């Protein structure tokens, strides 16, 4: 073999692209191999019905990190920026949350919400600082690790005595108790609950849901945007930046395994049997499929295998895409509201009740829904006058009792449509085509074990120093030359690029030290 790349990245998800581009900018010769036809991983735009396209998995941009934008010279075109969240009420007295305030509730609630958001923003700013750093290793004498750890302690202390206590009290808590203490409006409590549990296997009464809420805010103060052309355009822009930096991207190349020789990576082997050579292999795949599939248990140790095996990574969020022959009618919404993010979570108990069946392997008969109508401001996605709806729906457990089949999928899809129809009775007549992606479908299409969009539950026991597990929390796997750069690593999922960027920095730093 003559060609040896400086690095091979397995998977052209957004993190893989960010990582490859940054490595290439440091002068590395980088090859990216993507199993699917399109780059982007779960951040793609895809036609699901003739003439109708939609962001196939991730559909809203929360947190593409400014560092990533700057370093890769990206400025994604947004069809809608700073979207408001409209929480639907059955009596059409909807509420609207935007820029840290809420309309449609009592004055007390409105004031409480402003105070709540102010405090949460303060805490999430603290988190945000650490999104873009490799988490420090514990129990080492490495100066950088100690400095980061010290800084973290100092930053928490610097909140002030009371706020520090509050931070430490809240970080492991459930959102329900906090909301119940602060607010009257069920709708407001429902909307915040939804933000705390979206994409997770957690209900508002589950511990840790304040942290997931903070994580959502940490990206960009909770600012939400829809990219023009769907999420695929962000990935395309990243791929473009990577190619400009000199990265070679090959699609339809599924990596079968990472070749390990004498305890170190020497390259990869694709499904077609092609061997490609590099001493640095970076996996954008989730930690489970990387270790158990690409690397193989025999190349890592038992304790490590066990931790990876026990990672909680079963997804619980489905995607529903509808092709509509016109916008549905929501009582109490004006036309321009279709540019916003519309949620169905009428109260916090509704959200918890929706979660209950998921604990026992059943889907929610009355699910929680986050809807967007991306075609409203973006005519590239649907024919003129027609529209698409892209919705995240919870809860649809990956391990459905008896497994997902067409009947179960149809029944769940109908449950979602019935739920939406309570607010927009004409939605069913508008549907021309639909597509439901359960976590099982997401696993199959995007090669994510468990179909979890964070590649692993985002909870305190799988966060920061221990994300995905101890022994691999600094992007480096316990096999020489193998790295992780996907959402399964710190800080987690969402189209942020943070994991990919942190991984690239860790690899370059490691190389410098060697």
């Amino acid at each position, binding site marked *: 073999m003559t060609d040896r790349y400086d690095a091979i990245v397995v998977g052209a998800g957004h993190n893989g692209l960010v990582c490859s581009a940054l490595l290439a900018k440091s002068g590395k010769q980088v090859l990216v191999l993507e199993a699917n036809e399109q780059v982007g991983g779960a951040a793609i735009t895809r036609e699901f019905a003739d003439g109708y396209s939609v962001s196939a998995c991730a559909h809203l941009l929360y947190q593409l990190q400014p560092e990533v934008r700057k370093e890769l010279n990206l400025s994604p075109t947004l069809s809608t920026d700073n979207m408001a969240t409209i929480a639907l009420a059955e009596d059409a007295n909807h509420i609207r949350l935007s820029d840290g305030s809420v309309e449609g509730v009592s004055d007390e609630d409105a004031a409480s919400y402003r105070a709540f958001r102010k405090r949460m923003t303060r805490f999430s700013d603290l988190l945000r600082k650490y999104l873009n750093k490799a988490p420090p290793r514990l129990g080492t004498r490495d100066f950088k690790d100690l400095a980061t750890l010290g800084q973290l302690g100092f930053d928490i202390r610097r909140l002030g005595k009371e706020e520090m206590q509050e931070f430490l009290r809240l970080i492991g808590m459930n959102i329900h108790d906090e909301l119940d203490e602060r607010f009257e409006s069920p709708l407001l409590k429902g909307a915040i609950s939804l933000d705390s549990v979206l994409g997770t296997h957690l209900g508002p009464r589950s511990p840790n849901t304040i942290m997931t809420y903070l994580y959502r805010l940490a990206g960009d103060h909770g600012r939400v945007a829809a990219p023009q052309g769907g999420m695929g355009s962000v990935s395309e822009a990243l791929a473009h930046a990577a190619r400009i930096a000199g990265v070679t991207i090959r699609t339809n190349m599924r990596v079968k395994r990472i070749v390990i020789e004498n305890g170190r990576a020497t390259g990869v082997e694709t499904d077609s049997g092609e061997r490609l050579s590099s001493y640095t292999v970076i996996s954008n795949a989730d930690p489970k499929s990387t270790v158990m599939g690409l690397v193989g248990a025999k190349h890592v140790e038992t*304790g490590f295998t066990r931790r990876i095996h026990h990672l909680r990574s079963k997804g619980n969020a489905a995607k529903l895409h509808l092709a509509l022959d016109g916008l549905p009618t929501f009582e109490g919404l004006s036309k321009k509201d279709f540019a916003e993010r519309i949620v169905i979570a009428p109260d916090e108990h509704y959200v918890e009740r929706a979660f209950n069946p998921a604990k026992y392997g059943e889907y929610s008969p009355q699910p929680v829904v986050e809807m967007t109508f991306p075609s409203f401001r973006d005519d590239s996605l649907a024919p003129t006058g027609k529209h698409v709806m892209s919705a995240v729906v919870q809860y649809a457990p990956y391990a459905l009792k008896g497994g997902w089949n067409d009947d179960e999928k149809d029944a769940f899809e109908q449950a979602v449509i019935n739920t939406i129809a309570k607010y927009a009775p004409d939605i069913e007549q508008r549907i021309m085509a639909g597509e439901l992606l359960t976590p099982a479908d997401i696993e199959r299409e995007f090669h994510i074990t468990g179909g979890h969009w964070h590649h692993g539950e985002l909870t305190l026991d799988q966060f920061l120093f221990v994300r995905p597990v101890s022994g691999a929390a600094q992007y480096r796997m316990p096999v020489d030359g193998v790295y992780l750069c996907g959402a399964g690593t710190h800080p987690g999922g969402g189209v942020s690029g943070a994991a990919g960027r942190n991984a690239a920095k860790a690899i370059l730093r490691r190389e410098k030290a060697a």
Partner: protein
Amino acid sequence: MKSQPVHQGRLQTPFYSRLEKLDTVNEWHEWKGYSSADSLYCEDTEYFAIRNATAVFDLTPMTKYRISGPDALDYLNRLVTRDMAKVRPGRVAYAVWCDDQGQVIDDGTIFHLREGEYRLCSQERHFAWLQAAAIGFDVTVTHETEDVAALAVQGPTSFSVLNKMGLKGLEELKPFGLTHFDFQGTELMVSRTGFTADLGYELWIDPDKAEALWDALFEAGELFGIRAIGTHALELARIEAGFLAAYMEFLPADETVRTGRSRSPLELGLEWLVDFKKPNFNGRRALAEEKRNGSTWRLVKLDIEGNKPAHHSYIFENAKASKGHIGFITSAAWSPVCKQNIALGTVKTPHGKPGDTIWVEIYYQREMHWNRTMAKATVVDKPFWFPPRRGATPPGPY
């Protein structure tokens, strides 16, 4: 999985009916759920059966796992530190296994029964760890302690006893070899292994045939001084052999709570078992680092002056004990066969190199009053007892 009734109280091994008849002192202890005899009539007589005749020890409570499947070899090679590819069918390997930090979980023997089929034996139970180690491997791990009755038949006349019992061709079996015989229509496995560093064998059979085997063995051994023994006699032979015991020379790493209380194979004198040529095994990274940076502890075999066993003693650099202790004794005994005051201990490096002189603080009681003496000890590197007859093939007709 078939449900089984839960045993109440201590289990009895398939040899219990025979042991019970020979027992005169009624001293038993619990070994992994089973009743196991400390001694049956007289510890000293039992001990001398090991060294001068044939001793029979009921090994059934020893933990046994069957490991089979297409990935069995890969599995074991990742599990233990030595290279299992070199252990052919019909051979037995002493092995040690570690956690990811390179700390010893246990040691034991691995029997390569037939191509791709193994039995792992150890003092302690490790099913959870062996199951965790099986994640990602096409391998089956079965706990078979109860399904196999086992006897250790040890001592200079052990070959003669088994030969008389009719095991034809046993003389060709080399140390760490295993072979199969027919015993009354049942397969009897015989391995040339043991815990005594003497000529000796271990017999493995279906529990239904246990009593018949015992009877045949004792009938054949009558003129060769065969005796059943308990664990106290075996323990003395074990120390003479310089073998390690869990909870004595090391704590299983998964049982330790405090840092620094576990031991690595390098710290237990088992570097010869660690094959760094293997690209991966549990603990490899940590052990490679330990080898580069040096170990904290060293296992020592000590020849101590005087005749007072150094039970639980602290070890010092000099006779005045002026600098604080450098370690402690883990097993100690007066060895009747070596006529030596012997001990195993653990000391901080760089102390304890073979040939070094160190000092042991021995407390002993005389008519209620306690006395203290500082005894000079020499670090030796060979086992205290290692007679040529142990390895002789064919074995001598004692």
